[in-house]
């Protein structure tokens, strides 16, 4: 028996010896001191030098996709390194095409952090965080849409996002779903208020998350939220703005409008907001209020299935008809469309026929 214990101690001794060797080497040989990594010129990280870029980013909670774990065989971890990356290594050339090399795309598992670096990452990779939120208020905007306001508990500085982006809300297990489910919802609140977020959640029958929100969710309850995601957000330019929304698609559009109001942007803005019937319409008072405050903003609601007899004086028909009648030929607008995917596709065709360049049309499809 003592022979067994003795042999175990020897093995642990060998292990510890090598650990010591590695640590000493790390301390004296491989320490490159502090290095600064600036990401998309927005976020700056200070990391310990000597490791690969992929590894240092992972230490800071930024997860670049990787399959082979830094063995240089899967080439999943491509990242743009603008400065400080050093020459392209022979381990990377097999995986990088000519124009990737020209755009200084590198394998982050091979690039070593030895000095300050400037890199560019796809936005969703490094901005995503996880938030603990508390349900502050639940309001019935329409028989099928609830306005949910979430206060952010942690992290304190709240969520920084661009107007129009969305988050993923996670709801706990309950009767209908065996494990936590999460769905994406666009944020309607203005990006100036990072401490709280407003979502418009429409009831989708047999939809696990929406049923939970409509029937089980109570004020004061705590949930998990992740984000921000998506490349549908408000872009600065000088052109006039056309906003098109149906149903819960108004959420990101409202976030853009609130951004325009708080920034006092003087660009001519028109909003086509379509629903089936008057009861489906919501936030009308706030939108009318905005029309008074912002001289350059016009709000044109339309109802596609309103009964003839009702005393609704506004437009009747679909938002696509509004585009047909009100958008002049050859107009040079920035267009933001949000709603269900068929609506977005049909609006897209109409707008292209009107001659609006495709790269000026931004859309967000809710399936």
């Amino acid at each position, binding site marked *: 028996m003592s022979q*067994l214990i003795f*042999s175990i101690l020897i*093995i*642990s*001794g060998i*292990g*510890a010896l*090598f*650990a010591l060797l590695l*640590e000493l080497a790390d301390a004296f040989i491989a320490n490159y001191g502090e290095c600064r990594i600036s990401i998309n010129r927005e976020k700056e990280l200070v990391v310990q030098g000597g490791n690969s870029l992929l590894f240092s980013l992972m230490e800071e909670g930024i997860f670049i996709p990787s399959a082979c774990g830094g063995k240089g065989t899967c080439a999943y971890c491509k990242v743009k390194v603008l400065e400080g990356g050093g020459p392209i290594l022979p381990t990377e050339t097999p995986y990088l095409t000519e124009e990737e090399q020209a755009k200084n795309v590198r394998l982050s598992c091979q690039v070593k952090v030895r000095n300050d670096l400037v890199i560019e990452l796809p936005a969703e990779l490094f901005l995503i965080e996880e938030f603990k939120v508390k349900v502050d208020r639940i309001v019935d905007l329409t028989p099928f849409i609830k306005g949910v306001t979430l206060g952010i508990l942690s992290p304190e500085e709240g969520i920084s996002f661009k107007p129009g982006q969305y988050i993923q809300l996670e709801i706990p297990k309950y009767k209908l779903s065996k494990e936590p489910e999460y769905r994406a919802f666009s944020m309607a609140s203005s990006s100036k208020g990072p401490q709280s977020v407003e979502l418009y959640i429409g009831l989708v029958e047999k939809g696990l998350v929406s049923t939970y929100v409509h029937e089980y969710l109570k004020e004061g309850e705590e949930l998990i939220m992740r984000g921000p995601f998506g490349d549908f957000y408000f872009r600065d330019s000088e052109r006039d703005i056309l906003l098109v929304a149906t149903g819960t698609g108004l959420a990101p559009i409202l976030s853009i409008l609130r951004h325009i109001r708080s920034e006092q942007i003087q660009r001519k803005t028109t909003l086509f907001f379509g629903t089936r019937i008057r009861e489906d319409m919501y936030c009308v008072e706030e939108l009318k209020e905005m029309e008074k405050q912002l001289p350059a903003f016009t709000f044109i609601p339309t109802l596609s299935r309103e009964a003839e007899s009702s005393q609704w004086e506004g437009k009747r028909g679909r938002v696509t008809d509004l585009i047909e009648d009100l958008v002049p030929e050859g107009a040079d607008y920035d267009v933001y469309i949000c709603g269900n995917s068929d609506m977005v596709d049909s609006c897209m065709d109409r707008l292209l026929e009107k001659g609006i360049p495709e790269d000026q049309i931004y859309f967000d499809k809710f399936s």
Partner: protein
Amino acid sequence: MIKQLRSVVYMFLISLFFASLVSAVMFLNEKKIASNQALKLQRIILKVLDIAAEKNTADDQISRLFMERVKDIRVGDRILYVGYKEDGHTILGYAFPVGGPGFWGPIQGMVGVDPDATKVLGIAFYKHTETPGLGGRITEDWFSSQFNGLRLFPIEGDQKIFYLKPAGTTGAPNELDAITGATNTSSAVETFLNDELDYFLKELWTTVEERE
């Protein structure tokens, strides 16, 4: 300095934990493995001496049979196993271990010969590191049973006791089928087995005869 110390201690503890885990599993299975090895050896010796040829005889029956029917004697640098008939004293044959370099690593086997060492009773290879499905097939019955009845004579000049030819081209009784696809292992076996048989006949056999 604490960071370095922490990781050294951490590595020590982790290796301690896993080394003891492995030793525990080893300790629990050591006897089983040892008895497997011993049993395999006994089964091979009995098979080679043509005492209990079937594969599925139960383990305890094998060891009982081995106790009754086989005695081991030390001859030169090897242990020889003397096999007896049912009556317990007329000699059935002798078995002795053989070994040599294979294609990948050392191969060990057992050879059984009749009482006056003129004919092979049986041969079996039991320890090797050849490629599975290729050289590794020397352990299969179709290959080892070919040697049964092989005539033995001390080698003079370059004439060998047996040859391993590609399957289907064998003619004389001492030309046996090599393993298709494992030419390396086959030629290795041919070389070292001939030398071992020759060594047995020339060195070991004489001492065995006097002992009788």
